[in-house]
């Protein structure tokens, strides 16, 4: 005869096992799908299989690469993870935090192996919060954090 205590222990055991199985499942199977963006290096390595597919590339807007076409909302810039640079074209509104040397996630397609055309641009904020009068330290720190997160 199973005592009441044993029954409760069995129930708890089952619940914990099911929970553990769920975690294991998430960690092993969904890892690929849970990644929100590719790094520029990955995106270039997989250019062939990703061509014509809508993808997201995350990195840093290369300092000095941003070119605005005057009179339009068209821009061109390089997105980089410090090893690979990808030329990106975009036309439209930009988020407040979009600027050179800061994080960005571009969503769009490879037009050719040399050019990525973005349909959406999202700014990626680093985990650093710094007051205005310490801006220089802030810029350096957030660059460092961002490149670290792309490793």
């Amino acid at each position: 005869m199973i005592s009441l205590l044993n029954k409760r222990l069995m129930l708890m055991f089952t619940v914990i096992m099911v929970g553990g199985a769920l975690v294991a499942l998430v960690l092993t199977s969904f890892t690929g799908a849970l990644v929100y963006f590719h790094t520029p290096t990955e995106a270039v390595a997989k250019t062939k299989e990703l061509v014509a597919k809508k993808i997201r590339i995350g990195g840093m807007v290369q300092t000095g690469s941003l070119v605005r076409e005057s009179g339009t909302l068209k821009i061109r810039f390089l997105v980089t993870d410090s090893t690979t640079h990808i030329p990106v074209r975009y036309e439209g509104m930009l988020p407040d935090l979009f600027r050179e040397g800061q994080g960005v996630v571009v969503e769009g397609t490879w037009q050719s192996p040399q050019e990525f055309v973005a349909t959406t641009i999202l700014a990626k904020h680093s985990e650093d919060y710094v007051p205005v009068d310490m801006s220089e330290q802030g810029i350096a720190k957030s660059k460092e954090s961002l490149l670290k997160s792309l490793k």
Partner: protein
Amino acid sequence: MNILKKIQLPTGILTWITLIAGVWLVFNVPDDFQQGGAVKILYIHVPSAKMALLSYLVVTVASILHLWKRSETADILAEAATSVGAAFTAMTLASGSIWGKPMWGTWWAWDARLTSMLVLLILFKGLMVLRHSLDDPVKGARATAILAIIGAVDLPIIHYSVVWWRTLHQPPSLSAGSNAGIHIAGPLLTPLLILTVAFMLLTLYMTTVKARQIEARRRLDALETARMHADE
């Protein structure tokens, strides 16, 4: 349950004091070098998120105690913390969206952090629905406790989502362990710490009031049932 009655007023007063002090500091906080004034949203968003996770932790522990010891008190605590946690989760998602639109350029992104937090809200709501979906309140409480314990897998997923996967959401600014470091400069950090304490007190206060209300309702239900049986 007598202790709840005793702590309610002092906790309420302390909550008000720390909340007012914290909010006053937030209005005097310097602008962030990138976000400007929008950095103030941080002071609602981060403490809310912490309290949402803390509430679920309370629900989990209370559910284990309820299944193990058949403790009615633990069940009342679980039910109370579920409502409070749902409110903080909704607050986290709403404040995050309001920050995300101007800063990221989008209200929502299906990245691991945002999605796992939405799962937490669905879990809280699911627990609230499940409890009252069974006719027998004892069975309802037990089923709710089991779902709560299974759902606890979402807690480590939320916490580590920004570390395990690349997300649009930024990694933790305050972290211990291998990647230890404080990424929030001093003048911006103090109000956050004070508001985190204020939100903890607020959570305690809200859970206390809710637990007392649930207990009173259960006592009334029991009286009602007894009276109906007496009439028969």
